[in-house]
């Protein structure tokens, strides 16, 4: 069992606080993705975990044991770096066996292990080659095998896919996913690609400016983002500020019926572009003029000028509406996520239909928590 716990980690670089009291827990066997724009402290967090960087404050617990001051080479945590970092003077086999050799494991055992691992990463029989003779994808696979050779309790992956071509990336992603399922190794994966994180991870930790903003499942990050930044990371989102009262959402003189909501107060609606449709009837719709149209793989993205501001809608491709046309936008209010606002008491409010439906079976009829 391997559970990793970070508690109030602080890290400074030349006076600047790069990581700000970071805390989170990765449970045994979980595949967690650490997502954020470059410079948000993702890689630093990984290096802190690996023991390559010592934090100024805070503790790292591995299965409840404080490992903060244990050097990298004595931690049961292995890191795979962005640019493979295979040792150029060692053959593939020697590279994979490197960690085992450092531990003084006998040669015979090492060789067997290398063979097994190379098969695992689908590169059998290339022990004798040198890293320079491999392609980028092969190098990254060998680097992965090299890390797995040590059977670490925790595997850290620092953007292992970012230097690969798109085609190779898919294969490598599948390999990582499959190996994780087979080995059930606690894994932390750093990426700046949200889609990749969504595809791979059980849980995603979103970091912004050295702080952990939201740590949740991909499902919740998409449906219940904590802030506009998080919402924007995982798709296109529209925002409307208004007032909720008695199952009616008042926004700029318009009323939308949201009977499934019982909460009241100042709120901001997070409306996903894909939850807006172009329809012919005008009832309960937002009226506007199409300003721009773009194709996005399977969908069309419409930018529409409406009385409530600019709205972006993602609809099926069969609609042929050219810029300048008047359109009616229908919002699927059951899927909209509401966030309370005002009086400096912004925060999550447990109000969405999604929340209700997921809890429905257990707490049918339970009243929703009121917004702050």
């Amino acid at each position: 069992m391997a559970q990793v716990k970070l508690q109030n980690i602080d890290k400074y670089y030349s006076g600047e606080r790069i990581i700000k009291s970071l805390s989170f827990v990765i449970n045994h066997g979980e595949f967690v993705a650490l997502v954020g724009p470059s410079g948000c402290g993702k890689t630093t967090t990984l290096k802190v975990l690996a023991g390559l960087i010592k934090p100024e404050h805070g503790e790292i617990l591995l299965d409840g044991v404080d490992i903060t001051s244990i050097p990298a080479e004595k931690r049961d945590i292995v890191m795979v770096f962005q640019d493979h970092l295979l040792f150029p003077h060692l053959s593939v086999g020697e590279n994979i066996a490197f960690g085992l050799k450092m531990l003084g494991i006998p040669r015979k055992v090492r060789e067997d292990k290398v063979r097994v691992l190379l098969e695992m990463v689908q590169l059998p029989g290339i022990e004798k080659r040198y890293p320079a003779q491999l392609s980028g994808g092969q190098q990254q696979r060998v680097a992965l095998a090299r890390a797995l050779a040590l059977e670490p309790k925790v595997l850290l992956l620092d953007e292992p896919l970012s230097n690969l071509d798109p085609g190779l990336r898919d294969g490598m992603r599948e390999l990582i996913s499959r190996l994780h399922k087979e080995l059930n190794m606690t894994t932390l994966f750093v990426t700046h690609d949200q889609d990749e994180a969504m595809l791979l991870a059980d849980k995603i930790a979103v970091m912004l400016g050295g702080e952990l903003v939201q740590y949740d499942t991909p499902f919740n990050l998409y449906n219940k983002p904590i802030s506009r930044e998080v919402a924007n990371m995982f798709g296109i989102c529209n925002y409307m500020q208004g007032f909720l009262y008695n199952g009616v959402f008042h926004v700029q003189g318009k009323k939308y019926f949201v009977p499934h909501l019982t909460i009241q107060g100042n709120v901001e609606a997070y409306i996903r572009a894909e939850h807006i449709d172009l329809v012919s009837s005008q009832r309960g719709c937002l009226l506007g003029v199409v300003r721009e149209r773009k194709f996005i793989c399977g969908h069309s993205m419409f930018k529409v000028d409406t009385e409530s501001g600019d709205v972006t809608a993602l609809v099926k491709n069969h609609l042929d509406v050219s810029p300048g046309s008047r359109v009616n936008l229908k919002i699927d209010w059951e899927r909209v996520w509401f966030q309370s606002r005002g009086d400096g008491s912004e925060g999550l409010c447990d109000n969405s239909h999604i929340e209700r439906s997921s809890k429905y079976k257990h707490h049918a009829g339970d009243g929703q928590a009121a917004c702050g």
Partner: protein
Amino acid sequence: MQNNLTAYYKPYMLLAPALLVLVVFFLGGLAFALLQSFGYFPVIGLNKLSLEYYSKVLGQREFYASLGFTFYISFVSTALSTIVAIYLANYMVNLKRKNKFIDFLYKLPIAVPHIVAALMVVFLLSQGGFVARIFFKLGLLNETAQFPPLFYSRSAIGIILIYMWKEIPFITLMVYTVMNNIHKRLGEAASTLKASPRDVFYQVTLPLSMPSIISASAIVFAFSFGAFEIPYLLGASYPKTLSVWAYFNYISPDLLNRPVAMVISIVLTSFCVLLVGVYYVFMKNLRQWG
């Protein structure tokens, strides 16, 4: 067509001035030395090529003593300098923060000419020198002249120390940059793979910086093998190093000794080239990873 032709000749045009200097003065000098070593010296009426002077030089016992002495000085000073320099470079690589003081200090001897280095070490270590005086004051010696003679001796310890004083910083400088890059790039990867700092050095940093270590020490070896001033000033009267021996033959009033001087310097050159060549082949084999 015109353009293609210009492009073809362009590198040669760029190289022309450098090649002119190197071919005329360097290869020219080498060729003259070679011709004279074969006894072609029209100024004093020698016009025939022969191996006479080679057999004359190679037949002397002094030649082998001289060759051995030259090799001994170069090998010992280069080997010791290289080891110390690697130790120092690795120490600097592992410093958490770059120590500006160390960084400045160790480079100082590089700017100091060999002659000045020789003078300083003589003032320090000669029998009447600073260290001898300290030993005398401490009562370790009855008189300063009891201090072991480090100069003009067959042990050539003084000469080796002078070379080391000059060459350690030079090799450190050349090796440190490379080592530091390797350590920065691969050190972290190695330490997450359970390599202790010692393992990182022996398994990763050292093997990967071997090419630059070898090229630095080859340059140092070749330099000390052919160097003239310091063994001339501070060497033993017998055996002399090859360069000093060649020079004495060269300035001898008997012009017939000129070809002998050339033979010695050509032999000296051949050994230099041969040894550096062996060095480089060794390096190539070491770098099988390509």
